[in-house]
């Protein structure tokens, strides 16, 4: 295995593009090193991106949107009060990944590029309408997070492509987001179901919403029907019920060691309701 520490994304991309064997990028390493230790994946080229300028920065842009570097850790996000204030759902989703120790290393982009349908931060990023910029042999482009995964362990990224930054929209007024996941313990598990809700209010009425589900299909889902179920409502019981049904209907899960189809579908509906209530309360300015 060759270990590279390029100083620019262009160099990183060039190394990856020119590599002949298995290539992996290293940011937090919380997936790559596990695969390496287990002899599941032994990359021929490992490209550490942490020496590239700006990868450790969380920047609030002039339009109040955010740019998050690809090596920013979960811990650094949780320790950023203004980011937490704007996007508590995104931050808490990231924060749920692994232990305190894992938080010291794990990154949003790593979680996204690992391609797991159960990745905690991904539904939150989808609900928040986050996109990433990518540089590769074909030049630079922007990809919405919801378009990144193509199946378990797979993304739209091609050989030589590398994510250069995470772009989080401006929060705007009267809006809130939330992420909840179900795990059998209180910590340290992979989501059996994950659900993120991001919404905006006009008075008491929801005017915009995005609902995303994780671990219930081959990829993280953006569920328009679930959003439609609550847009135009005050999140009354009827709306919550419709939301729950829409979330359940969107599920296409599998039976595996972490949960059954039946369980995942049922709990997706439960989490959608619970997450929506939190997002709604946050949009109302309540600390939840």
């Amino acid at each position, binding site marked *: 295995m060759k*270990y590279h520490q390029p100083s620019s994304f262009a160099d990183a991309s060039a190394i990856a593009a020119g590599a002949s064997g298995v290539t992996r990028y290293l940011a937090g*390493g919380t997936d790559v090193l*596990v695969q390496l*230790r287990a002899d599941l994946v032994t990359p021929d080229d490992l490209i*550490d991106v942490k020496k590239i300028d700006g990868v450790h920065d969380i920047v609030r842009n002039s339009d109040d949107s955010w740019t998050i570097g690809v090596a920013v*850790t979960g811990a650094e996000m949780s320790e950023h009060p203004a980011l937490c204030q704007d996007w508590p759902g995104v931050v808490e989703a990231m924060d749920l990944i692994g*232990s305190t120790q894992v938080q010291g*290393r794990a990154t949003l982009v790593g979680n996204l590029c690992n391609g797991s349908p159960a990745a905690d931060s991904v539904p939150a990023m989808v609900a928040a309408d986050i996109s990433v910029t990518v540089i590769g042999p074909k030049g630079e482009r922007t990809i919405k997070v919801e378009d990144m995964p193509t199946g378990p362990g797979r993304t739209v990224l091609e050989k030589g492509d590398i994510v250069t930054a995470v772009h989080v929209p401006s929060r705007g007024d009267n809006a809130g987001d939330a992420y909840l996941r179900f795990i059998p313990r209180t*910590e340290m598990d992979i989501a059996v179901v994950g659900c993120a809700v991001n919404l905006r209010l006009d008075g008491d009425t929801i005017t915009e919403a995005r609902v995303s589900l994780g671990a219930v299909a081959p990829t993280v889902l953006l569920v328009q029907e679930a959003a439609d179920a609550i847009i135009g409502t005050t999140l009354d019981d009827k709306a919550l019920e419709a939301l729950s049904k829409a979330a359940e209907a969107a599920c296409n899960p599998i039976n595996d060691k972490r949960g059954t189809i039946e369980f995942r579908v049922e709990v997706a509906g439960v989490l959608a309701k619970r997450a929506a209530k939190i997002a709604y309360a946050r949009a109302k300015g309540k600390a939840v």
Partner: protein
Amino acid sequence: MSKIHVTTKVNGDEVEFLCDPRETMLDVLRDHLNLTGAKEGCGTGDCGACSVTVDGRLVCSCLMLGAEAEGKEIATVEGIANGEALHPLQTKFIEYAALQCGICTPGILVAAKNLLEREPDPTEEQVRYWLAGNLCRCTGYDKIIRAVMDTAADMREAS
């Protein structure tokens, strides 16, 4: 297979080593630097027995490559005591029998020390969640949590 030359600081001392790019920081500590205090309980970041801090940040040394240590400051359980003076957490862990077999103890001490440096007055819930990545199979955590809480109280009083 070419090895990588790394210069770093471990518990305040400058050290140099050559490592295979596949070797983790934990491998380097244990096999090259003879610091066997950090333990490998899982190799997947799930047990916390290999906990160290890197530039003050708590991490699993099994989830970091040795090559990444260049220019960093690593702190391990071996650096917690100051000469013959134990850190209050160490004293309290013995007093409370917050260890049975002791294999998780180095990681838990490193993690708990890091917590108390950030939050001198943690709630029980904070301690439990902070240490959720440090598995202990012997104690049921009861005495560990009590030892950390009581150390925090003592340290607050002393400061």
